[in-house]
């Protein structure tokens, strides 16, 4: 398979693609070789009083109803557009980071797929999940669960809350009040990868809760045989 572009001779600098206000409000080391970092310190605790297994099993059954990952990333060369499935996200703050991954690079619609269950789609789970983070405003909160099949990645990025912006009809995000939390729904398995800054996760347990503080570069991959499932709460802090 011949590449459609040259491999950059100079290192791509992901920092340059992150919105300025995130860099200002959440300074981070931006050095992959830094050893004395505290990137692992954002682990909060394991949430034990919730049936994660039931949620995970339910999510897989829900995906099996249609078998089609709703989300994937691609670059529309003809229209110079960054596409998240059918959504043109050129006006979203993720654009510049997405271009680094998609334009003249090899992340594409074939290797970035995931199933997404969000908000009201959670059915009877929605209410208890909403109440799990009382520090987030209920009217300014989004919950999404990702099922990442084997062979797919979520390219490294810093969160820009594009889905949240769309959902809450805001023209611009105020990153100073936004927060994202993530829980692993199933135990770690072969081939499951997640890096949060310079910390590469290993052997997580279902219910492990991480505070995904804005401004820290992270991504994930599944090179194993079982789906990887995570759930995320994004919203405004009260």
């Amino acid at each position, binding site marked *: *398979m011949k590449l459609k572009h040259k491999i950059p001779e100079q290192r*791509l600098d992901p920092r340059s693609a992150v919105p300025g206000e995130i860099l200002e409000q959440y300074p981070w080391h931006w050095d992959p070789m830094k050893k004395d970092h505290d990137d692992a310190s954002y682990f909060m605790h394991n949430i034990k009083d919730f049936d994660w297994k039931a949620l995970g099993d339910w999510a897989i059954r829900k995906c099996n109803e249609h078998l089609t990952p709703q989300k994937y990333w691609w670059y529309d060369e003809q229209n110079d557009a960054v596409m998240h499935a059918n959504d043109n996200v050129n006006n979203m703050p993720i654009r510049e980071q997405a271009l680094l*991954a998609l334009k003249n690079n090899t992340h594409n619609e074939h290797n970035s797929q995931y199933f997404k269950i969000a908000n009201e789609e959670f059915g009877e789970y929605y209410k208890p999940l909403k109440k799990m983070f009382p520090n987030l405003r209920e009217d300014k909160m989004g919950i999404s669960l990702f099922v990442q099949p*084997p062979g797919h990645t979520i390219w*490294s990025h810093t969160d820009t809350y594009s889905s949240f912006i769309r959902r809450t009809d805001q023209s611009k995000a105020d990153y100073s009040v936004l927060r994202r939390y993530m829980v692993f729904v199933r135990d770690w398995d072969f081939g499951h990868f997640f890096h949060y800054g310079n910390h590469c996760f290993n052997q997580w347990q279902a219910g492990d809760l991480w505070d995904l503080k804005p401004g820290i570069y992270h991504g994930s*991959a599944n090179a*194993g045989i079982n789906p990887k499932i995570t759930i995320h709460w994004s919203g405004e802090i009260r």
Partner: protein
Amino acid sequence: MLDNQYFKKYLADHGADLSKHLDVGKLCTLEIDPNTFEAFAEMHRDEAVVKSWHPRPFLSAMGNEQAINANWIGYNKHNTTESNWGLDPAHNKELIDMIGSHNFKTMGIDPARTLVRLLEYMPGHCLPLHSDGLEGFKKLYRDTQPTRLFVAVSDWDWGHVLQLHDNVISNWSSGDTYVIPPNVFHASANFGIAPKYTLTITGVRQ
């Protein structure tokens, strides 16, 4: 959604059990210049072996069974493409020379009975869970007890990872070298934005 029963059975039949810990430590750090290997890749791009996961007539039955199982659950040319150099004897010799005799001494590997391959994984591509068949080495040397080493060419970058059984190897420096024990299942991925360059060195310990 995911009919992974065959792959699961394959893992169970081959004793892959995550509840058992495998101790993995760094063997050594080679003194190499990543730029020379990346330049080698660029210079010999048209001679690279470009492959993805699918059954091939020259693989062992084990290798093909793993490829079929991987294809069955969604691995294909879009997410497993690798460019590699070293199967061509001229490339192997050049790569051995680039590594240098002092590094072979550090590794305790006989450079005369070694197959070096330089691997390039572009972003979005991964090496699915597998154990090594060492077909390339066996074809060359017919030695049944070689050692397989993983060597990081470049300093670690975000999204570059290797998993050896229940160990995630990351945050490496250029030259960091790990033994991949026989029959141990492992996987790797590149979900960053820069290409991932590594060496696999398969050789006989001295």
